[in-house]
């Protein structure tokens, strides 16, 4: 279940041996990290909410606006041509990033949330009916929960959940046989849990779904920028992620879809760019990807995303994965040595984030005090209210890592948590 992420067939193997990577130099590519907050050096441990951007991505956006901007597709002048090439080039780059077969399998959206809503409102609206089942998991972010919940309510379909075992954050896959039946029209699940750090066996789950004829959607928001994500290896029908979490700009996201799926979907938003022909009372629409991209697209977002993917593959996603996981494992171990700490998610095989709670200290108080120490954590329900409710907590604190973080920063976190514990124990 773990190995497939690194199967030998991966299209995009790391370019450097891990030892050769100068992580400190990479960190210097991120201007924002070089600052103090509240008089302390910034320790940014909230990359699962949104990653920071390297100079290369910022520069690509600036270069675009300073040299090549124009509307795309519509013009036949030089700048329009360049903007179109930049936009479609980003699509090709994204296809390579995911090892998709063709750029036509890539639709640009605002982000993970819009990608999922698009699928729910088009594929879901057309293919899910009364009595059908939609299967998701208790690990899902609200973005991969509410659209299906609302679709199920609209259609009279049933929304089923693969349960989480408990604090360890693992899915109870022993229930799969019983839940993943031929009644399931769509099976949507997160690749990596943003709360628990659980890594789900995506390829295996998709294989099982195919056996019962269920269409699959993989929420790769937490995985796309952190490990290799190969849609052919995973074998999903849809896969979604957000640019802003993988070093890219805000406002851009990706929907990968199999051509067969796109072909059976009605349009989503309508307007310019997505039509073949329009008459006063009828219109004909383009196929994917353009048929699902109405209006002027976020060209600068696509350009920045392109630069982000180049950056990630230059570092090597395998290396990033090892680096982030190492920090998370170290954090997990250090925190588990402190008294009164409740840890969430699996003890082994976890992704690069750790959620936890301090006994008798509300997560908000913890995060506020850590902020005073320069440490940016997230506190709250991490957009998974019902899971928190199931675990009997209102909120938790989360430290999430990227390759620009260091062990020294984890040490600062531990020091901060110890101080906070002492302070509230007064």
């Amino acid at each position: 279940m773990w190995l497939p992420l690194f199967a030998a067939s991966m299209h995009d193997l790391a370019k450097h041996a891990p030892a050769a990577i100068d992580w400190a130099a990479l960190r210097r590519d991120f201007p924002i990290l070089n600052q103090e907050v509240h008089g302390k050096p910034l320790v940014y441990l909230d990359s699962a909410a949104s990653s920071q951007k390297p100079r290369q991505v910022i520069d690509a956006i600036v270069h675009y606006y300073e040299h090549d901007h124009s509307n795309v597709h519509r013009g036949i002048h030089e700048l329009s041509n360049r903007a179109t090439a930049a936009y479609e080039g980003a699509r090709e780059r994204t296809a390579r990033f995911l090892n998709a077969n063709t750029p036509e399998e890539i639709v640009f959206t605002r982000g993970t949330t819009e990608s999922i809503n698009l699928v729910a409102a088009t594929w879901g609206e057309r293919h899910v009916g009364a009595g059908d089942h939609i299967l998701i998991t208790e690990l899902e972010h609200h973005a991969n929960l509410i659209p299906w919940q609302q679709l199920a309510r609209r259609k009279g379909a049933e929304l089923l959940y693969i349960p989480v075992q408990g604090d360890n954050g693992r899915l109870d896959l022993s229930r799969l046989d019983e839940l993943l039946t031929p009644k399931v029209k769509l099976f949507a699940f997160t690749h990596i849990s943003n709360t628990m750090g659980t890594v789900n066996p995506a390829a295996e789950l998709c294989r099982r779904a195919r056996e019962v004829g269920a269409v699959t959607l993989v929420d790769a928001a937490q995985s796309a920028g952190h490990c290799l994500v190969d849609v052919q290896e995973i074998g999903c029908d849809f896969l979604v992620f957000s640019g802003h979490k993988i070093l890219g700009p805000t406002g851009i996201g990706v929907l990968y879809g199999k051509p067969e799926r796109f072909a059976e979907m009605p349009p989503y938003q309508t307007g310019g760019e997505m039509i073949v022909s329009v008459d006063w009372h009828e219109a004909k629409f383009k196929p994917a990807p353009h048929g699902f991209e109405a209006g002027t697209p976020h060209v600068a977002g696509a350009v920045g995303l392109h630069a982000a993917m180049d950056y990630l593959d230059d570092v090597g996603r395998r290396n990033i994965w090892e680096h982030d996981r190492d920090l998370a494992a170290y954090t997990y171990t250090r925190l588990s040595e402190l008294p009164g700490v409740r840890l969430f998610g699996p003890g082994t095989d976890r992704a690069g984030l750790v959620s936890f709670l301090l006994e008798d200290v509300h997560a908000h108080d913890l995060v506020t005090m850590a902020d005073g120490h320069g440490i940016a954590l997230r506190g709250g329900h991490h957009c998974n209210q019902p899971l928190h409710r199931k675990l009997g907590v209102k909120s938790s604190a989360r430290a999430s890592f990227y390759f620009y973080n260091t062990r020294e920063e984890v040490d600062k976190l531990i020091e901060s948590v110890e101080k906070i514990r002492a302070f509230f124990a007064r």
Partner: protein
Amino acid sequence: MDVDFEELYQSVILDHSRKPRNFGPLPDPTVTVAGDNPTCGDEIALSLKIDPQADKVAGVGFTGSGCSICMASASLMTLKVKGKTRAEAGALLNDFQGMITGKTPEAEIPKALGDLRLLSGVRKFPQRVKCATLGWHALKGALAQTEGAAKFSVDPKDADL
């Protein structure tokens, strides 16, 4: 430890957050208003017993859970509001709002707020203002109705009472 945080988490505040006063269900309440802050999951349900003759708050109680700022603020509020008329409670609410949002200059924070003034440090932490005001939102709702129960949610960016 940072000076700011000493100020934010003074011992009176920690004390109130650990042992909130008037905590627990109020028997026979005239009004109950429950509020939550969806961002962090904090929840406060405030009950008032109104003496109809005097139009005064004769009894007060609250339940729920939240961070220390939220709990301490609600606890301190209940101490202040008991025995006040509706109008007096409304004035208190205004004073508190002025202080917590920073609209009232430091030097002009009314003495009448008493221990509530210990929460003035919150104004330096805009992201925590909503924690300090959750109980007060409930109070505002409770004062606005004559009987019954109501529910509301606080918009995460809404610090106005």
